């Protein structure tokens, strides 16, 4: 899957299974294994944005965290500029952390409530010996300005800031070590729509100015359409469709992508759209259905016994477009 030498980030066969929670206050046997991430591969070329979309529990956030080794994956390779992250020792890993950073969803939980903005931003500079004293102060002021905050906010604590301001601080913290690659884990989904627009604009500007590479994780397909070059759709721990953004939104091949797109409400009362309402809930990742994981909810008219038994492979169905569906040639 475009696993080319030109990629900055190259993820191959990533697997993460969580043991299920234990019953009775940790005394019981662990429940079934949750296949959070099940053989996921993708690559991102420098300066590009890959959008990773899916509903809650599909494993998209786990992907983001495992490729930064905030969660240890069970199998696979994560190459950053050709260097396999998963085989590094803790010292080398810490050094490499300068090149890749993460911005979280919840602006309320992602800042240490006991630290001021200045302390939050000074920490990475100190860890990587980038700047101290007055030099650090100048850099912090510059960072705040870059993310659109008045440098006067440096003395504030997190609880004195609004959600949008906190998210800007979170972005500044990630930028402080001058990374090349950012994992953006639902960075705007907790924000109000007017603030969301501000932050999305900021992310676009930063990407251009700093030539950043993004992995943009989100559940909102409209937001992803706005920012991503490539889009990967996840369902129950697997990528089910992968395509350049323009193609995916214009001509989705996987019935899940099609249904997902049709379910997004559009702020236009005149829009005549055919809404495909999927029946049922997303199955538990602890007990994924056999065959195609989407088959119990699939609205495809050709759905048959093959879908129930044989898991479809992710294959190229159009130039640059991959889908994991036996009937991808006949989209909904």
């Amino acid at each position, binding site marked *: 899957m475009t696993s080319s030498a030109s990629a900055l980030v190259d993820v191959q066969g990533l697997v993460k299974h969580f043991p299920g929670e234990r019953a009775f206050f940790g005394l019981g046997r662990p429940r079934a294994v949750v296949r959070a991430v099940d053989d996921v591969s993708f690559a991102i070329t420098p300066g590009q944005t890959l959008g990773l979309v899916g509903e809650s529990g599909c494993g998209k956030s786990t992907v983001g965290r495992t490729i930064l080794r905030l969660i240890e994956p069970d199998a696979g390779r994560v190459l950053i500029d050709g260097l396999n992250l998963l085989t590094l020792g803790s010292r080398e890993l810490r050094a490499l952390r300068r090149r890749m950073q993460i911005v979280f969803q919840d602006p309320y939980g992602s800042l240490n409530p006991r630290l001021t903005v200045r302390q939050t931003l000074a920490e990475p500079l100190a860890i990587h010996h980038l700047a101290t004293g007055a030099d650090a102060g100048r850099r912090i002021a510059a960072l705040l300005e870059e993310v659109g905050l008045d440098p006067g906010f440096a003395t504030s604590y997190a609880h004195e800031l609004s959600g949008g301001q906190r998210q800007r601080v979170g972005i500044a913290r990630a930028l402080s070590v001058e990374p090349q690659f950012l994992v953006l884990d639902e960075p705007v989904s907790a924000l109000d729509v007017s603030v969301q627009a501000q932050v999305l*604009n900021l992310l676009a500007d930063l990407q251009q100015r700093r030539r950043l590479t993004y992995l943009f994780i989100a559940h*909102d*397909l409209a937001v992803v359409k706005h920012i991503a070059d490539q889009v990967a759709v996840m369902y129950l721990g697997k990528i089910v469709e992968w395509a350049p953004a323009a193609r995916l*939104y214009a001509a989705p091949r996987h019935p899940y992508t099609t249904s997902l797109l049709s379910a997004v409400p*559009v702020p236009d*009362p005149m829009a005549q759209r055919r809404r495909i309402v999927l029946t049922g809930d*997303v199955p538990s990742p602890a007990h994924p259905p056999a065959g195609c994981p989407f088959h119990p909810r699939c609205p495809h008219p050709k759905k048959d016994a093959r879908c129930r038994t044989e898991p479809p492979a992710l294959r190229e169905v159009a130039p640059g477009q991959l889908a994991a569906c036996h009937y991808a040639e006949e989209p909904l």
Partner: protein
Amino acid sequence: MTEPLLRVRDLKTYFVTEHGSGTARAVDGVSFDLYPGETLGLVGESGCGKTVTSLSVLRLIPEPPGHIRPGSFIEFAGRNLLTLAPRELRAIRGNQIAMIFQEPMTSLNPVFTVGDQIAEAAIVHQRLSRRAARARAIEMLKLVGIPDPAQRVDHYPHQMSGGMRQRVMIAMALVCHPKVLIADEPTTALDVTIQAQILELLERLQAELGMAVMLITHDLGVVAGSADRVVVMYAGQVVEQAPTPELFARPLHPYTEGLLASVPRLDAPPARARARLHGIPGQVPASSDWPGGCRFHPRCPYAWDRCREEEPPLLDASSGEPGSHTVRCWLLTEPQRRTTRPGP
């Protein structure tokens, strides 16, 4: 024109702030009507007062710290809900006006079966026997599309998914066939495919049962697809009110305009998809400290002296029936000031 079912006039709900020193004017003079059988969308961002408005209708505001100011008026079936005795109010709650909430996870009582919780309102309001109420609960579960209702009736909320729980909430709200359903962000906590299911369910039930729905949401897409009329709130006030097609085609308040421009759109043509969004600069001010004059003026691209000094009333901008489209903006008096928007 028919008489409104619910008439809200000059609703003011204030809160004492935590330090006890200030007053948060969360809802500050809100008026609107809800007509039989219609869906009214109440939209705005967090902190605009839309949830407090909906809770105030049934007087579910925790007192203290909150209180509804005297002079506020909520008329339902010819009576002011705000002056009813608690006993009479209870006879309306859940019976004639019902509510569903944002978090189906926490809004159901974890220690009772869903059947008991659905049946409860029927027992209290309609004096059904336990057996009859249980049968009614099963019937309701079937109505909201829960498979195997006869088994599900004895399940506990934690045994159900988020979408199922929201269906249970809806069944619970509709068990007494209320005239009004207040839905406070009913799909915000749900995934988009489940949201589509719930919205469709609400539409179907409204058609079947003929009730009026007050749909509170921050999502303009949801409003566009479901509501007949829209009330836009900002900073504790109604800033614009219009029929849905009119509002989306001809947004007059700069806040509505900005809100529509901020939304990334799935239906945008590819060329525009990667363009910059028009955000609204700044942020919603604190409800204990609304700006003077027009409350939107610090964020408004068109604001001039008058906006800073004088608070605009709701002005009529209707092209059709008088009062059908109202806007709280001085631009209506000086439309020449609406220039092309300054760039983002």
